[in-house]
């Protein structure tokens, strides 16, 4: 929150990387994989 020095501070919460998120990330990779692979080789 705003303080005497005129700065506006917003606290951030940190979410640890966990196994559930990793599984979800792999699902997303599968979902988006071909698109990303295509981009990797510079194809539109």
């Amino acid at each position: 929150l705003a303080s005497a020095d005129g700065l506006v501070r917003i606290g951030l919460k940190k979410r640890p990387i966990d196994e559930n998120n990793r599984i979800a990330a792999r699902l997303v990779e599968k979902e988006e994989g071909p698109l990303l692979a295509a981009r990797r080789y510079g194809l539109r």
Partner: protein
Amino acid sequence: GAPLKEGEETDIIALKNYMNAQYFGEIGIGTPPQKFTVIFDTGSSNLWVPSSKCYFSIACLFHTKYKSGRSSSYHKNGKSASIHYGTGAISGFFSTDHVKVGDLVVKTQDFIEATKEPSVTFVVAKFDGILGLGFQEISVGNAVPVWYNMVDQGLIKEPVFSFWFNRNANDGEGGEIVFGGADPNHYKGNHTYVPVTQKGYWQFEMGDVLVGGQSTGFCNGGCAAIADSGTSLLAGPTTIIAEINQKIGASGVVSQECKAVVAEYGQQILQMLLAEVQPGKICSSIGLCTFDGKQGVSAGIESVVNKDTRRSAAGLSDAMCNVCEMAVVWMQNQISQNQTQELIFNYLNQLCEKLPSPMGESSVDCSSVASMPDISFTIGGKKFSLKPEQYILQVGEGYAAQCISGFTALDVPPPRGPLWILGDVFMGAYHTVFDYGNMRVGFADAA
């Protein structure tokens, strides 16, 4: 070659992976404020949250939804909007309302009420929406970003904001974003500033990347980099990520194309490098790429991976061109280290096995972390190093512990690339100042 529609030119955004985003903050929208958890994302420029009119997306069931009917400061806009991320898309319509950030109230802010969030990304996401801190140039619908309104409405002292991510796993505090300046408690020494080179993203010019003090060569001539708080990992050119993977023992994906290029063209590439042929022309000389004066581009030729079943798939030949260009860089580096021919080919085959999957994660052995090399990025002529404990992420504890490399591959062709995305892994080590008034980005050791 087809003309791009509105929003489609933001193809870098399309490579973001919000799945791994780790840091969130809270904002309020409307009067009285409705609370939302958002990612403060320097790699995009729109504000969006789920709408109470989102009925058919599972993601909306799990997140707070904005109810315009409950806000006395709401103004209807209604213009439709959609944003395509690599890990999903959202669509909906624009609305206008007050946005509370800390104790500041940004008045008449345009934002997107998302009515469709079809991707699995947003179902499992721990955040409700995204608050973009990039430039208006990449804002979908040309909406004025929250940050611009904060400055225009005179809510902050200086047109600067800064990030501090707390990498101390045992500390409950996640980090802090400071609007109006930088908190001296969260950095050490002075910031090294570099100018923004491509307004839209917080993009700047970066130099060589070193692994264990040795040049990787690829960014000697300069690479672009984007400071992106909305991305967890560090993403960069496959050429360098494969070298890093080889040094840290990260498991990658075996690439047949890569091994085929080394087997069939390796000797030829080596001879040409020794004969001091311009490296950028080698892959076109052997027919894998077309030389366009600056870089190799795919010749669209047939693959010779399997001579019995010749294929003409454009993707495969593009891959061969790409792999050839990587092989040239790798070989150049090896030659400069006076390695023997045998060692050079062994090393290249090892690198082929360490080719990462694009935007995917690589596992490493947790017990080897202490012996892994530092990896340094040259920014503004200064080396910014990451120690292994800073670029390796640990999941779980004790026997269940798994270690993931903080590096992932991302290949963006010229003129936008080669490109690095410096996500939370980098911004955790270095306190980052986004100086809008002077169009520059600054890095200092995080405290």
